[in-house]
């Protein structure tokens, strides 16, 4: 069975979702969801190990060989991404806070877990398929399940947030479809490898350019790159906190992967950066995102909204790495995918614990909680330090590579701006620390049970571990970056 792993990792959560509808009992469904997530994680780590030793794995669905059939192709980048997504899922799904802040009656909870599994299946599908149309289908599976998950938040504003995400997400998805159509019209193929072979001689064509533009805009909407980010803060704020943790830590990463795949594998860095000079568009957008996101985060009164705006800033860092198109820059961007997934997942889970105890996610709710809930609050502080990029945390590693990449290009001002924007992060993180540890305690609460703080600490502990021990993260990211830039994986 082991040669089928790259198909099974997508098929398992996809088929596990309907099983939730048959099991129905909340506790059973919950255990089942966790088991599936764990199984996926084991498969993902196995695949990563196999890709790193044996090179890219290709799997043809239904026995139809590519480029005719649908190919699932795993190289260093996909496998790295699978590991990120499944690890986050394996930590978030069993968390005691998974149901916190959801507006679901007892008899309907199994549907919530089915939606979580479908979302996971979609994310894994986008990351592993080598067929462009397949990407669109999985993008829509992910999006549809996340609209439902977001709309399940307690507040009625969750509904309007989900609706505006639905409108934006559908426009983005349809743009992707249109872009795929243009490419198919010119080349007659949907397979990414095949496209990469056929496109170089067609790059002069307007149709290809239009297709590229639509793919980039569609992907950017899904990634919430700075001017297209409007849907993100509301969606993350109103969703149940565990859903925010899962989606913030995985969905944007997968969209980032999609953009990187389109730019580097399908079109090639030479076309995108040397002929189109796209980095002169991406670089200002990334810088604007870093500053606008961090500035907006400073003024937020809701913890989840604060983290959402900080996510926009962090997406800016990742896009910055993309726009450098050099090994150091891409390594920084890709390693930031992993590190940001750890810290945002951990921080949102910490917020979930706060919501569990205080029933509110406003910044004032954590007033004085540093003494009442020391474990959760300590996790929040360390996650915040990692967002700033303090040495010893994972956030430092990725920013280090970004700065190195910027210096390599001779973009000294960009390197300075990276440091400056980190200083803004100090402001909003310090605000949290001040309120949590020096504020007056307004809620008389105790620490959350172990099954709620442990997942938070696994992720936050991860930011500490991978802040010092960077073999796996940076090693995987740099081989992924080399694979993207056309070297041997």
């Amino acid at each position: 069975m082991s040669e089928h792993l790259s198909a099974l990792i997508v098929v398992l959560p996809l088929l596990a979702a309907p099983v939730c509808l048959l099991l129905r009992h909340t506790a059973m469904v919950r255990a089942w969801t966790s088991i599936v997530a764990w199984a996926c994680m084991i498969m993902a780590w196995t695949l990563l190990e196999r890709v790193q030793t044996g090179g890219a794995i290709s799997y043809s669905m239904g026995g139809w060989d590519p480029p005719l059939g649908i190919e699932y192709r795993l190289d260093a980048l996909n496998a790295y991404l699978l590991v990120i997504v499944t690890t986050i899922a394996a930590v978030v799904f069993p968390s005691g806070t998974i149901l916190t802040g959801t507006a679901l009656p007892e008899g309907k909870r199994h549907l919530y877990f089915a939606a979580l599994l479908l979302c996971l299946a979609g994310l894994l599908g986008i990351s592993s398929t080598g067929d462009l149309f397949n990407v669109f289908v999985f993008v829509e599976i992910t999006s549809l399940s996340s609209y439902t998950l977001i709309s399940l938040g307690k507040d009625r504003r969750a509904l309007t947030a989900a609706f505006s995400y639905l409108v934006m997400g559908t426009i983005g998805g349809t743009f992707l479809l249109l872009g795929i159509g243009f490419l198919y019209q010119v080349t007659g193929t949907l397979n990414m490898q095949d496209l990469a072979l056929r496109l170089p001689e067609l790059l002069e064509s307007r149709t290809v350019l239009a297709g590229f533009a639509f793919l980039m805009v569609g992907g950017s909407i899904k990634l919430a790159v700075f001017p297209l980010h409007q849907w993100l803060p509301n969606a993350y704020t109103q969703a149940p906190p565990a859903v925010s943790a899962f989606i913030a830590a995985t969905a944007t990463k997968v969209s980032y992967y999609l953009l990187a795949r389109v730019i580097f594998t399908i079109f090639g860095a030479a076309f995108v950066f040397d002929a189109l000079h796209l980095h002169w568009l991406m670089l200002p957008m990334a810088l604007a995102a870093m500053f606008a996101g961090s500035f907006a985060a400073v003024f937020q009164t809701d913890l989840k909204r604060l983290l959402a705006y900080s996510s926009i800033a962090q997406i800016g860092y990742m896009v910055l790495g993309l726009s450098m198109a050099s090994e150091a820059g891409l390594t920084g961007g890709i390693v930031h995918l992993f590190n940001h997934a750890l810290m945002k997942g951990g921080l949102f889970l910490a917020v979930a614990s706060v919501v569990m105890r205080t029933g509110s996610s406003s910044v004032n709710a954590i007033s004085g909680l540093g003494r009442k809930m020391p474990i959760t609050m300590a996790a929040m502080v360390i996650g915040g330090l990692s967002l700033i990029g303090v040495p010893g945390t994972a956030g430092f590693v990725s920013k280090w590579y970004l700065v190195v990449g910027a210096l390599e290009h001779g973009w000294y001002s960009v390197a300075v701006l990276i440091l400056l924007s980190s200083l803004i992060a100090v402001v909003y993180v310090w605000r949290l620390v001040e309120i949590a540890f020096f504020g007056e305690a307004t809620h008389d609460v105790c620490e959350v049970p172990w099954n709620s703080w442990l997942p938070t600490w696994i992720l936050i502990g991860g930011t500490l571990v991978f802040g010092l021990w960077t073999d796996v993260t940076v090693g995987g990211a740099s081989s992924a970056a080399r694979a993207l830039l056309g070297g041997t994986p």
Partner: protein
Amino acid sequence: MEALGVWNYWVVVLLMMIGLYTVIARDHLVKKLIGLGVFQVSVIMFYVSMGKVTGGTAPIIPDEVPAEGILYSNPLPHVLMLTAIVVGVATLAVGLALVVRIREAYGTAEEDELQRMNGAQS
């Protein structure tokens, strides 16, 4: 005149702009969804017209006559659009379900009123 020869793409562009304009300009959420539907249908039209081969027939290989020399239409875009239609239906269903719940929670489905109520709440 060359531009008129590709009239099918003009139809696609027109539909797409109508859809996008409706999504942006209309306040009622159901009307927004209708616009979104038109927008998606324009892309479906684009694919389907792409698969048309002049003089081509339905791509089914006949048993009796030899298959050589028969000109077929390209079936792949149609197959792809079957999936896209299903995606569109699912999106519409989720969107309408959200509108129903929004209407229940707020008592209205007009965007400006929703924004006012959300603004008052926060």
